[in-house]
């Protein structure tokens, strides 16, 4: 009887924590989705959830997010070889060009553009789509 009670309590706790995790994770994405300018910390959070890899760069979490930062994180994660110049210099500018070549960013993108929350999520969605296609 005691075992039964413990099992029920444990299962309930697992269910509630799973539900809360789901809620907080979705709410986090919704919060980012509402931002006119996302932060570097937002990108780290989403990349960590998506990639399970450390693609962090040397910036403070509250710094405004630029397209160059996201391009560099993306190129690092996907190991993009699309741009010859990126392979040589590894700079944000050429990382953006590599992302454009892979259809992950708009052709009119530049490394210093500030990124909004929806734009950041869109890049992550495209990475997820690309990963899904290669599976």
């Amino acid at each position, binding site marked *: 009887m005691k075992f039964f009670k413990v099992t029920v309590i444990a299962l309930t706790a697992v269910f509630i924590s*799973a*539900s809360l*995790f*789901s*809620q907080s*994770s*979705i*709410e986090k*994405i*919704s919060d980012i*989705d509402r931002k006119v300018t996302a932060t570097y910390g937002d990108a780290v959070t*989403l990349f960590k*959830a*998506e990639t399970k890899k450390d693609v962090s760069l040397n910036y403070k979490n509250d710094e405004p997010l630029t397209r160059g930062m996201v391009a560099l994180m993306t190129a690092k994660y996907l190991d993009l070889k699309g741009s010859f110049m990126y392979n040589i210099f590894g700079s944000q500018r050429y990382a953006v060009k590599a992302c454009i070549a892979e259809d992950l960013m*708009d052709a009119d993108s530049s490394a210093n553009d500030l990124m*909004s929350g*929806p*734009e950041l*999520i*869109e890049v*992550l*969605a*495209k990475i*997820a*789509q690309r990963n*899904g296609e290669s599976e």
Partner: protein
Amino acid sequence: MKKIISLIIAILFLGTSSLFAEIKVLKVKGTVAYKTGKDWTAVSAGMDLPEGVKISTGANSSAELKLNALNHTITIKPYTVIQVFSRTDSKNSDTNVGLKRGNIIVRVPKDKKVKTVFKVTTPIATSSVRGTAEDIFSGTKEMIVKVLDGEIEGSNRLGRKKNIRGRQVFHQKKGEPGSDNILSRLRKDSIPDFEDSDTSPLDNKTGEDAKVGVSIIWYLP
């Protein structure tokens, strides 16, 4: 008397139940939630969701929904937010999916007996799906439609059309002018000659007399 009352209740139940949405969750992977009031609640497989439900997926997450007995399904990919309105009875099936952002795959098998309207609306454009399978992506500045199965008919505001099939891709940029050729970014075939195209609206046709796998895409001003 009891029999008559039971019969009336049964008729009322059967009559009204067919008007309700039948949004059933078939599969869930990762973090998927639906909105109830202001809060998000976890979605699990086997769950029935209400008409007008708003669903969101997180990283490495997906869900598959079955909308009715006609096997209309939606696969929701990661980082997606959709809202689903779906009603089906024995003669009509009317579904409108609002794709706020992200990526979905819709499968709408053809059924000759049921008049089917299945629309996917994004902030950029609307795609009407029938008898086909499509992969639809909605971003901040573009909508991308990939044909997975069947055939799509793309149409611009002038009624000019082009059939798209065989894993071709259709792009529509936000704010792009409704040029003479909305399909100018079509990746494979050359641009068609529209001179003799039939401009009658396909939406008025039933599943029976519409072409197999027809979809209409038009630019929203």
